[in-house]
Structures are given as C-alpha cells and as structure tokens.
C-alpha cells in the first residue's frame, strides 16, 4: 500500500474497494462450498478417508477463511484510514 504512493486515480481506488467488498461477500459462500466437500467423500469404513486427512482438510479450510477475514478487516481499516487526503510527496507545484 505505502509503496503505491498517493491516490493517483480515485476511480481505481473505488473500484478496488468494490471488489474487496465482493470478496468479503464471497467468503462465506466459499466456506460453505469447501466444507460441503467432505460429504462427497466415500463414507464406508473400509475405503473411507482417514480421520487425520479429514482433520487437516477441515481445519485447513478454517485457517484459510480466518486469514482471509483478517486480511479483509485489515484492508477495510487501512482504506478507511486512507480516506484522509495525504500530502503528495515530490510534487513541486505550488499552485
């Protein structure tokens, strides 16, 4: 974020922001889809998926979702903070 410097194109920022919200909306849907996957696994005791694999899968999805939600929360916060107009570094125009 900081490397990108000042908001040169406001439209782009707004656009990013919209897509970010889209991502936030998609997240639970993604979670539902991923957590319904175990239902497709074979359920007979002989050829069933080992519990360890199932554990890793379910908790792995969980961790990823938490991470995404965390990143989204972070983004939303910094974007809100970015709303304040920052001084443009290096722009020598005094007008």
């Amino acid at each position: 974020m900081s490397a990108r410097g000042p908001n040169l194109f406001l439209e782009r920022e707004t656009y990013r922001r919209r897509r970010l919200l889209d991502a936030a909306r998609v997240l639970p849907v993604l979670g539902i889809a991923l957590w319904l996957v175990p239902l497709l696994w074979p359920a007979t005791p002989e050829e069933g998926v080992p519990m360890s694999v199932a554990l890793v899968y379910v908790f792995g999805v969980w961790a990823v979702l938490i991470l995404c939600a965390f990143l989204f929360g972070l983004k939303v916060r910094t974007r809100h903070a970015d709303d304040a107009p920052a001084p443009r570094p290096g722009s020598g125009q005094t007008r």
Partner: protein
Amino acid sequence: MDTLSILVSVCLVYVIILFAVAALADQMAAAGKARWLRSPVVYTLSLSIYCTGWTFYGAVGYAARSGLEFVTIYLGPTLVMIGWWWGLRKLVRIGRSQRVTSIADLLASRYGKSNMLAIGVTILAVLAVTPYISLQLQSITLSFSIFAGTDEQAPDNTAFLVAVGLALFAILFGTRNLDANERHYGVVTAVAVEAVVKLIALLAVGIFVVWGLVGGIAPMMERIDASEIGAFEVQGGRWTAITLLSAAALICLPRMFQVMVVENDDERHLRTAAWAFPLYLFLMSLFVVPIAVVGLDLLPVGSNPDLFVVSLPLFAERDGLAMLAFLGGFSSATSMVIVAAMALSIMISNHLIMPLYLTARSGLGVTETGDVRHVVLMARRVSIGAVMALGYVYFDVSGDDAALAAIGLIAFAGIAQILPALVGGLFWRGATRAGALAGLTAGFGLWVYTALLPGIGTAGIIPAAMLADGPLGIGWLRPQALFGVEGLDPIVHSTMWSLSLNTTAFIAVSMLSFPSPLERLQGAQFVNVFDHSVGPRGWTGSPAQAEDLLTMARRILGPDRAQALFHREARRQGVGGNLPEPTPEFLDRLERELSGSIGTATAHAMVVQIVGGETVSVEDLMAVADESAQLVEYSGQLEAKSAELTRTAAQLREANDKLTQISLQKDGFLSQVSHELRTPMTSIRAFSEILRDTRRLSEEDKNRYAGIIHDEAVRLTRLLDDLLDLSVLESGQVSLNMRSATLDGLLDHAVATALAGAAKPIAIDRRRSEEAAQIDTDLDRLSQVFINLIANAQKYCDAPDPWLTIRLRSLGDRLAVDFIDNGAGVPREARALIFEKFARVGGDKAGGAGLGLAICREIMDRLGGEIAYLDGAQGGAFRVLLPAPRAMAAQ
C-alpha cells in the same frame, strides 16, 4: 475428600475474583475511564459465551461418539462471522439505531412494535433455553462428582448451590442499571475473563495430551487413524443441518444476541470479531479429536467421554491441570448461564411483566406516582430467579444424562425458528407481522411436536406408543416420521419440517396479508437501515403534556437523565426552560430512549398512553400527505409573492432613479435660468447707472445707452415669456383653441411674422399649389412653431445666399412640413440636444435663450404631432409632423 474441599475453595476464590472483576469493571465504566473495556478484544471474548459447558465438555464426548461431526457446531458460527458484511453488520446497526434490547424486542420492533410477537418469541426462547441452562448445571455437577470420585456425591446440593450463586451474580451485575444501552460492563468483562480461562484450559489439556501423553503431532495422527473414530464418517443430513442450526443459533440465541448486538459498543468491533471469533472457535476445537481419541484409548471402558477433559489429566495424575480444566468447564457453564439468564430476564420483564403491569395499572395512568424503574428492575430480578429455578427444576426432574446431552441440539433447533422472521425482517420489506406470527407458530409447533417432546419423551411426557404409532394410531402423524418420511435422523427430520414449513408459512402469509402503516414504516427503516439510520417515524403532533412525559421519563430513566434529556431537547427546539414542545421528533427520540430501558413495545405503549394519540393510522398518513401538499401550495404562493416583491422593488428603484434625475434636471434648469436672467440684468444695471451718474453725457450716447437698456429689457421679457410659456406647456395647463384653416394661409402668416423687421430676410422657397391641405388644430400654437423654425433659419443659416425650402409631404395618412435651409445645419453631435432647454448651438450669436425648440417640441406634443431634426438633408432641416386627422376629428 481432600480434593473436593480444595476444589470447592478454588471455585469460591475464582468466583470471588469474578465478582471483583465485574465490580471493578462497573466502577471503571461509571467513572468513564474504561476505554479498554470497549475494545474489540473484549467484544470478541464476550462472544465466546457461545462455547458453553456443553461445548467444553460435550465436544469431546460428541467426537468420541460421532467423530468429526462435532465440528459443525463451530462451522456455522464461523460462516456467519466471516460473512459479517452481509448480515451481522446490518443486524448490529439496526440494533443500535433502534435501541433494541433483545431478539424479541427486535422482532417486535420490526413488525410494527407488536408485543404479541415479542411474547411469542419470549416464550419460545424460555422453552428452548431453560433445558440448556439445566445442561450447564449438569455439567458442573458432573465435573464435581468426577473430582469427588464417586458419582453419588450429593449432586442435587451442588447444582442447587451453583444455581443460587449464578442467579445472585446475574442479579447483582445484570440488573444494576436499567438502560440497556449503558451496557453491562461488569458482566461482559467477567465473561471475557472466563473466555480466556476456558480457552487456556482447553488448550493446556490439548497440548498436554498431544505432546505429553502421545509425544507429538505425527504419532498423534497415527493414533487418531488407528482409533475407533479413525475413518471419516458423517451423515450428510446431520452435517448440513447442524451447520445450519449452529449458524442460526449464533444470531438467534438470546444470550448471543445480548452480547453481539445489545452490548455492542462500536460497530467496527465486528471487523475484528469477524476473524478473531472464528479463530477462537478454531482453537477451541483444535484438540477435541486428540483428547477424545486418547481418552478412548487410555481410560477404562465405560467412562463418560463427556468428562474426558477432566478425567484424562486426573488419570495422568496431573491434579493442577485437572483443576484448570475444571475451572475452564466451570467458566464455560457459568458465563453462559449468567448471560442467558440476564437476556431472558430482559425479555420476560419487557414483554411479559411490564405490559401486564401497565395494563393492570392503566386505570391509574402511568403518570401517577410510583417508580417504574423500580418495578422494571424488580421484574428482572424475579425473572432471573425464575429462569434459574426453571433450569434447576428441569435438571432435577429429568436427571437423565442422555436426554440432557440431546437437549443442546434440540434447543438450537427451537431457537432457529426465529431465523426466517429475522432474516425476512432484515432483508424483505414485504414481510408482515401476520407472516412472522404464522411462521413462528408453525415452526414452534412442529419443533415442540417433532423434537422437544420426543427428545425429552423418555422422561415420560409423551407415551412411547404415540412415538411409535402416532397419535391415536395415525401413522403419518408420528412425531419422528411426519407425513411418512421415515429413516431420517430425528434432528434432521425436525429441522427440515419445522424450518421449511416455518419459512413457507412466513412467506405465504406475508404475501397474502397487508401490513399496518407502522409495520411498513419500520420495515422500510430496517431493510434500508444504511440509507437512513434516522428516518421518518410515526408520531404525529398531539397535545401531549410535556410535564406528563417528563414525569414518566423520570421514573424510567431516573431524574437526572430525564432532566438532561428534556433540557437538551428544549435547547434543540429553541424553547426556553426545561419543557420541550411534544413534537413528533421529540416523541420519537424519547420513545427510543425509553425503549432502551423497557423495550420498544412497552415504550411505545407508554408514550401512547400519555400522548393519547394512536400510533400511525392511514388517516394520519393522509393528513401528513395533505399537510405536505398544503406546504407545497403555500411555498408556491410565497414564491409568487417574492417574485412580485422583487418586481415592485425594481419599479421603486427605477422611480427613485427617475426622481433623482428629475431633481438634478431641475437644479440644472434653475441655475441656467438664473444665469440667463443675470446677463441682461447686469447690462441694464450697468447702463442705467451710467445714465444716472454721468453728468455730461452726449445726447447720442444717452440714446445709445437707453437703446441698449431697452433691448436688454425686451430680451428679458422675451425670456420670461418663453419660460412662462414653457412652464405652462410642461405643466399641461395650456388650453387649446381649436380652429380650422388651410395650411398655406398659416404659412403665409408665419413667414411674414418671422421675417418682419429683418434687415436681410432669407429667401423662402414654397410650392403654394401643394399647400391647400385643410388642418384643424390650435392655429396660433402651430404657427408659433413655424415662426420659430423660420426665424431660426433666418438667424442661423450661414450660407452667403441663404434660402429656406418649405415643403408639404404626405406620409401615409399624416402630413409633415419640412423646413430645409442651405446652411451648414446642426452639427451631428448637437442634434440630440437641440430640443432640450437652454440648448444653444454655436454660441450666443443670435441672443436667444435656447428655449425656442424646447417650446416647439412641447407644443407639438400637446397638439398630438411631432417635431424632429431631419438627418441626411443638405442643410439645417426640421420636420414637423402634423397631428393625425383622426385624433383631430375626435377632439
């Protein structure tokens, strides 16, 4: 025995610490220096009351029995939390903007402030949550008993004492203040502390099991796969249904609603909780399967898997860890019970007791003496006691472990019946009260019939025969195989039927019924909460007595806050004193303020009682519409008036400008006149003085001077005559002497008069044959004009051989006489001025006062004709446009 006494003392110390924490937090909040109490971390931790004793102990037992299925209890809430942007954000915003006090209050408020709905939800919540509370009592009792080593160790006594203690805590810190917006900092902080304790406890046991007992992650995984729950086996129906139920429970459970919406300090805390709470759940369930597997392995067959969390450390002779685990379970159970009892008591007192109380006392009126605050707080305390007593009685009566274990999910299924009305209310403006009632009734009934009664059926509430064969032997009405749908898991069966029929009834009845105006207003406010957090509301102006309102508010909010509120409002309205006008806005605000203490429906009812006005009827809305139409009309009139005023002002300004100009002209005229009079007077005075004072004056000089004096006097007289003439003409007092004559005669007379006595008369060029036209006007005046023009030509024509052409022209139906000489004419720049008074061209050559042409113009104006300088002719040229014959005929 020793362990037990240690346990009891540890518990007591722990509880005392909790009391201290709560008291301290309340104190700090009251002192206003509790910023960290409102931090997102505390908010997130307070949400952890979702993890009750049932999850702390029960999750391991659940995993030991059915493998990974236990995790669905946490997956649902995780999905809801990470989807906060969709639903929770809106819920919290509405909760804050409408000052909602409970889930029942929210639904009542959404559906037209209907207390009936609130009562229904309250009853449902009490029915669903009470067994849940008894489950917590059981978990505490069981963990006590396992420490004691004997299952017979007077569990009744323990449960009773715990129930009393928890009730005391809830009453002390949950009913301290009345306004639910002032939050229960003490309770929330204590709950947050307990959240930390239970997380640490479970993690400690888990780490001990994985690394202490098994020896690392890899051997743990092997052990898991080798155990009796080593293969992943779930029923798809249960997996989905429990995920759905737990998701619904996170929103609909009264205690969850309490901490998530009512106690929410800042909407932005959701942002943190959105990932932090799932993380908490993640950590809480991370070690559940390992503990279950190791417990199944190591502990003797037949030991209760629900207590593995405590019994494993005990088995490994780690008493300290076991104590910590016990405290974790104790924390889980107590925090849940305290908040649940508090939330339920708010619902019961606001929606059951207060309406009854108000109805019973409506004869007296709420403005009569008596402190309602006291009544509300008392109602809450009694409610907490009653809820706790119910939980204890349920625990005491059922006593069956298996039945209690099943209760958790059954409670979830029951509370989930609120979901359709809640979600519909938040997102669908077409949802009506009738629809919500229908859906709730259908769902509630089906839940009781298919889940609650069979679930506790072994305790003998419904006979086993009915369960097997249906009521009166009607097979398709069997509670666990409704309409012939057999072979389903009971909870899936119940969830499917109750929720689907609930939703169907809700939607269908909503579409068929018509909402009241208040419902529609509230619906719009809820669904579009982000568009207008403060929107149009229901109060219409009514002759309420501000004093009565103040009296009532004082009794509910307390004197200081009420006084402050009214004072603030009066200032906002710009009214002196402390009593604001009961405007709709004020009533609205007051109602919201009150609803924070006593719930929306009750607050509404109380304000209605004083204001006397009905809420919003169609008539009111029509009146409002009429009013606005009138306003539009009125503003239109105002606009017209303002335009008229602008016009008038412009006219006035114009008139003023004109007057100023005229005044200037008058000043100029006066100075001109005095100057004109002064010049001949000076020479008359000078020459008469010479005649008087000079003795020896020749006769010749004497005659010359007398001649000058005479000439000047004549000139003076002429000037005065002219001035008089002009003023008469200008003032319009001239009387016209209308006569008829031919033009040639008139011109003859004029030429003769003008040129009489001239030393060298100007040559006149006329066409007598064309001048036979008959005119009818004031002949003297007209000839005065002609004379003036001819005399001017005589005076000013500078040609060496001057002559004047006089021609009669016919311009349409008008006649014009042109006077054109062969001189240089009037200079272009002077032409605009020659008809003005005292305007003289080319110096004082002929001794005129410069009034002649001005008089001519005035005369022609009077006669109805015109005089103008004729541009483009050879020399000086004037055109006299004779009066129109029609105008003459009319005179």
